[in-house]
C-alpha cells in the first residue's frame, strides 16, 4: 500500500499509456475472447429477464388498451393469411421453375439461398452516440462476426462482436456503417451510410451515386455485390429524396430502410458467410437440398 501511494501518479500515467496502446491494438476487434465471454455470460441472462419483464408489462398494458382492435386485426390477418397461402403456392411453383432456369444460366452462385436463424433483441447500447444492440444468440449457436442481420424483410445490419451466448449487432443506421448498394431498376451503384442526424427521421444516406445515374424517388435500393460481407440483392429501402452534390459532382439520396429499428424485438441472422470472393459457389447444397 505504501508503494502504491508513493508512485500513484506514475502508475496512473503508465496505465493511461497502456490503455492507449490497447485501443490501438484492439482497433479491429481483436479483443480477448475469454474476458468478453465471462462478462456476457453474466449480463446476457439478466438482460433477457429484463426484456422479458418489459414485454410482459407492455403486453398487459396493450392488452387492456386495444382488445377490440386486436379482434378486428385478427380477422383481417386471417383473411390475408388465406390469400398469402394461395400466393405462396403459386410462388413455390414459380420458384421451382426459376430454379430450373437458374441451373441453366448458372446463376445460383450469384444469388444464393439464405439460411437464417432467429434471435431476440435483449439489450441496447446506453450510449447516445451509437445504435448498436445485443441479441441473445452467440458463438454457442454458431454465430460469427460479420454475419448479416435481417429484420422486417430488409437489411438490418451486421454482427460486429460475438460472445458465448450473445452478440453485438451494428445496424445500418449506426454512424459507423457503410454498405455497398445499387438501385434495383438500373443497377446504379452507391454507398449506404448511417448518420445520427438522419437516423432521427429513420433515414440513411446513399452517396457516391454517379451524376448521370437515373435515380428517382421510390426507387428500391438493394445490396450490391461490392459489399464484401453482404450477399447481393437484399432489400435495403426506398428512396425518399434525391439531391445533387455540387462539389463532388455526384448525387446523393435519402433512403428509408425497410427494416425497423426503433422497437426491434426479433431479428434474423444469416448464417452463411459471404466474405469470400463472389465467384465461389457458397450455396450449392442450399439450392439442391430441397
Amino acid at each position, binding site marked *: 500500500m505504501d508503494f502504491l501511494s508513493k508512485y*500513484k501518479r506514475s502508475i496512473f500515467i503508465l496505465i*493511461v499509456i497502456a490503455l492507449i496502446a*490497447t*485501443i490501438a491494438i484492439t482497433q479491429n476487434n481483436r*479483443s480477448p475472447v475469454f474476458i468478453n465471454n465471462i462478462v456476457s455470460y453474466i449480463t446476457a441472462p439478466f438482460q433477457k429477464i429484463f426484456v422479458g419483464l418489459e414485454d410482459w408489462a407492455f403486453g398487459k398494458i396493450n392488452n387492456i388498451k386495444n382488445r377490440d382492435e386486436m379482434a378486428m386485426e385478427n380477422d383481417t390477418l386471417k383473411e390475408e393469411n388465406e390469400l398469402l397461402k394461395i400466393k405462396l403456392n403459386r410462388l413455390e411453383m414459380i420458384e421451382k421453375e426459376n430454379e430450373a432456369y437458374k441451373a441453366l444460366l448458372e446463376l445460383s452462385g450469384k444469388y444464393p439461398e439464405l439460411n437464417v436463424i432467429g434471435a431476440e433483441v435483449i439489450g441496447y447500447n*446506453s*450510449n447516445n452516440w451509437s445504435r448498436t444492440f445485443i441479441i441473445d444468440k452467440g458463438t454457442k449457436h454458431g454465430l460469427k462476426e460479420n454475419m448479416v442481420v435481417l429484420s422486417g424483410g430488409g437489411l438490418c445490419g451486421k454482427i460486429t462482436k460475438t460472445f458465448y451466448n450473445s452478440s453485438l449487432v451494428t445496424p445500418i443506421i449506426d454512424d459507423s456503417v457503410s454498405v455497398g448498394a445499387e438501385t434495383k431498376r438500373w443497377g446504379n451503384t452507391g454507398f449506404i451510410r448511417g448518420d*445520427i442526424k438522419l437516423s432521427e427521421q429513420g433515414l440513411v444516406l446513399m452517396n457516391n451515386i454517379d451524376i448521370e445515374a437515373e435515380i428517382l424517388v421510390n426507387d428500391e435500393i438493394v445490396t450490391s455485390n461490392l459489399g464484401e460481407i453482404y450477399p447481393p440483392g437484399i432489400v435495403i429501402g426506398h428512396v425518399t429524396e434525391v439531391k445533387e452534390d455540387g462539389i463532388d459532382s455526384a448525387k446523393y439520396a435519402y433512403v428509408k430502410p425497410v427494416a425497423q429499428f426503433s422497437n426491434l424485438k426479433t431479428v434474423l441472422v444469416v448464417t452463411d458467410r459471404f466474405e469470400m470472393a463472389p465467384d465461389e459457389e457458397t450455396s450449392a447444397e442450399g439450392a439442391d437440398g430441397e
Partner: protein
Amino acid sequence: MRGFITAVVLMVNIILSSTVFRHIAIFGIMPNTTIIIVVSFALLRSDTESAAIGFFAGLLQDILFADALGLNALLYMVIGYFCGKPFRDFYRENYLLPLFLILGATFFFEFAYYVTNFLFRSRLDILYYFSRIIVPELFYNALLTIPVYRIIYNINKSLEKKETSKRKLF
C-alpha cells in the same frame, strides 16, 4: 466485500442502462448513469480506488459495446482519478459539489467521445452534436445526480459502518 458490492453496483448499472433506460429517454436521449456513479464513488473514496472503479466501469462498457477495447476504460479512469483527488475533506451532505463535478465529467466524457469517434471520421457539425446530444444529456444527468448520489452515499455508508465494526472486534 467492498469490491464485491461495487462490482454488483456497476453490473446492475450496465444491465439496467442497456435494457430499461430507453423507456425513460427524453427526446431520444438517455442519461449516462455510469458517470454519475463513478463521480459519486470518487467523492466518497480515495483517488486510487475511484480510478480503479472508473477503469472497471469503462472496461465493462468496452467489452459489451465498443469496437476497440480501452477507450471507455481510459476516460472513466481519468474521471475517477481527477474527481477523487482534491475533494477528500468536503462535507458529504453537500450536493452542489457532486452536481458541478458530474456536469464537468459528463461534458469531458461526451466531448472526448465525440472527438475520438466522430471528429476523426470528419463529422464536423459540432453545433448539431452539441445541441442534440451533449447538452440534453448534461441536463438529464444533472437531474439524476442527487438521487443516484444518494443511493451511492447510502451504500458507501453501510459499507463503512460494517468495516469499522469489524475493526473494533479485533
